[in-house]
């Protein structure tokens, strides 16, 4: 991923090296028409840096260059830089590059009197004129000192060479071996005073990291830090952390985590495509199983997944995934899933980055799993910078990244996680909770940028059918997990049954009472009816009697009137 040089109007004309990141640090590249010194210890990448400068000049900027090698033969040089993806022989054939190997066999040489290095000048001038070179590399000029004994002549000639380079307007890189307490063994920095770049390959905690520092840049501002840099088949790239831009396009597309329960906990039903997800947890919390599930889900959707493993072998991951019912092997066979396994201590951080870079380009995955990132050892800052770079690498390609991290309890690891969390879009924390003499696994989502998410702590189990989240049970004393939850659930069920039976009994009693009362009511109603009937009988008798009396009276009256 080439980093574009920042728009900058240099007061000093500059020549871009095309080394990603370096042109940013130096705000444009090396001083045009002047020699620059690139120094460093053996194996620090001086030759590759210089070769990159020439190849980029020829390929990207249309500036042919001459490589004058004092150490390696042209064929060796071509073979060595072929690992960076450069085809020197083709460039030579096209007349865009000239290689002159200055072979100095000490045993063939006898010094017999006064001389100068005109031969070297003529050769360089000839090579430059042949292809109209604008760029020159002299690698490593200092080997002259071991071949020729007259140091006074050499120094005078070197001085003349550098002024010759300036006079010809050639942008040159002079490489020099680092010496004790000085930049170069023979003090070349005395002559090359415009720009000095120091390369370093430092071993720390048994892991090497390449670094680059611009020691001096006359007439120009420059980044003064030590920057890690890496060498891979795309050449050299320097990692200025500040240079990593945050201008990636983002996606609204959501992809499943592979675990239904987690998807449900995330507001959008999964992770955003192209986001980075951190899965942290102690040993045995099932980080790798989650990762495998994630990978399986991606492959099942037909996406490519690249799985970087640093603590296990690919076979081991596949076997272990089978125990939770995941068949990763079929994805490997179908070519959707690729494992890249390596011990983290095998290379330095920058090599890992380089490998990841290379693999991303070759495989073009949609999903990347890194298991675990805590395997990277090194100074905090460096690990952080490397991870930052890795996350950026994935984001700029819109690859969803799942990183697992083994989190220690407190201490440095914690701090590292804190730093890391700001790089991550989502963070799921797996933890074990001890209760009632057992460890139970729970998870919760610490954050998930751009979506609401559940705040619940959920228990999960890993079984033959995969990872399953269990309905949360919140008891009187907090969240219950494991057998405590099971006991609680059972107790709850018993109590419920008991309550139900009690209610039923009460219902029956009520029924019975209602029946009794209704019977009573019926009886009372019956007796009332009887009484009413009796009362009616009396009434009729009374009326009859009244009638009889009336008739009697009438009969009597008629009889009395008859008697009158």
């Amino acid at each position, binding site marked *: 991923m080439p980093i574009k040089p920042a728009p900058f109007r240099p007061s000093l004309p500059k020549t871009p090296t095309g080394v990603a990141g370096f042109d940013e640090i130096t705000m444009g590249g090396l001083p045009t028409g002047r020699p620059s010194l690139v120094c460093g210890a053996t194996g620090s990448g001086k030759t590759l840096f210089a070769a990159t400068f020439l190849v980029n000049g020829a390929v990207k900027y249309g500036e042919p260059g001459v490589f004058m090698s004092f150490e390696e033969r042209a064929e060796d040089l071509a073979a060595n830089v072929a690992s960076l993806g450069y085809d020197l022989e083709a460039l030579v054939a096209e007349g865009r590059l000239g290689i*002159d190997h*200055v*072979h*100095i*066999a000490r045993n*063939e*040489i*006898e*010094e*017999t*009197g*006064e*001389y*100068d*290095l*005109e*031969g*070297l000048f*003529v*050769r360089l*001038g*000839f*090579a430059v004129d042949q292809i109209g070179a604008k760029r020159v590399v002299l690698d490593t000029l200092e080997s*002259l000192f071991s*071949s*020729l004994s007259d140091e006074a002549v050499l120094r005078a000639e070197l001085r003349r060479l550098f002024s010759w380079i300036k006079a010809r307007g050639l942008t040159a890189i002079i490489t020099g071996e680092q010496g004790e307490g000085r930049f170069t063994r023979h003090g070349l920095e005395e002559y090359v005073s415009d720009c000095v770049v120091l390369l370093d390959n430092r071993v720390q905690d048994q892991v090497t990291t390449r670094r680059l520092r611009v020691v001096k840049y006359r007439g120009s501002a420059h980044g003064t830090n030590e920057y890690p840099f890496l060498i891979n088949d795309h050449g050299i790239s320097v990692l200025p952390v500040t240079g990593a831009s945050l201008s990636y396009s983002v996606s609204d597309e959501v992809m499943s985590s592979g675990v239904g329960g987690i998807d449900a906990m995330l507001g959008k039903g999964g992770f955003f495509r192209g986001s980075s997800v951190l899965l942290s947890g102690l040993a045995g919390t099932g980080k790798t199983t989650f990762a495998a599930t994630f990978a399986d889900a991606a492959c099942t959707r037909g996406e490519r997944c690249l799985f970087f493993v640093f603590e296990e072998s690919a076979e081991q991951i596949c076997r272990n995934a089978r125990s939770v019912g995941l068949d990763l092997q079929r994805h490997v066979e179908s070519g959707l899933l690729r494992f890249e396994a390596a011990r983290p201590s095998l290379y330095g951080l920058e090599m890992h980055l380089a490998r990841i870079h290379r693999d991303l380009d070759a495989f073009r995955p949609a999903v990347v799993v890194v298991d675990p990132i805590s395997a990277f050892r090194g100074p905090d800052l460096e690990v952080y910078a490397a991870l930052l770079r890795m996350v950026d690498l994935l984001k700029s390609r819109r690859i969803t990244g799942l990183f697992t991290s083994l989190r220690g309890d407190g201490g440095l690891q914690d701090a590292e996680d804190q730093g890391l969390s700001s790089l991550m879009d989502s963070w799921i924390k797996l933890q074990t909770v001890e209760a009632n003499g057992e460890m139970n696994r729970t998870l919760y989502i610490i954050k998930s940028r751009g979506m609401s998410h559940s705040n619940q702590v959920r228990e999960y189990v890993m079984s033959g059918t995969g990872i399953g989240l269990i309905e949360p049970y919140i008891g009187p004393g907090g969240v219950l997990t494991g057998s405590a939850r099971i006991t609680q659930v059972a107790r709850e069920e018993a109590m419920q049954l008991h309550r139900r039976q009690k209610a039923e009994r009460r219902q029956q009693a009520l029924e019975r009472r209602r029946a009794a009362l209704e019977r009573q009511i019926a009886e009372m109603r019956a007796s009332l009816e009887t009484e009413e009937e009796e009362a009616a009988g009396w009434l009729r008798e009374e009326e009859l009697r009244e009638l009889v009396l009336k008739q009697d009276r009438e009969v009597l009256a008629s009889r009395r009137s008859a008697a009158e």
Partner: protein
Amino acid sequence: MSRGRGLAADPPRYHLRLFVAGTSPLSLRTIQVLRRLCGRYLAGRVDLEVVDIYQQPELAERDQILAAPTLVKLAPLPLRRLIGDLSDERQVLRALALPLEDTDGE
């Protein structure tokens, strides 16, 4: 070296190539010295070429010339490069595997 054997058998034939840079006083002096040495030690058994690297820079590259002047002893083997103006005659004779004469003038 094979100095003793060289004397006993036929003296070997020499092939020398001198690279100089133009017609500087250094170049001219060196050519002079070489002519004199050849006359004294290698009369009749030397092929001598003089190359001006300004005129033929490609030869400088081909023959791995670094310093000027440089005298390359192409034959007999082993190949030797004598850099400098050949003023140190003792050194020159040893490098060319020629016997030292006691009547050394210098």
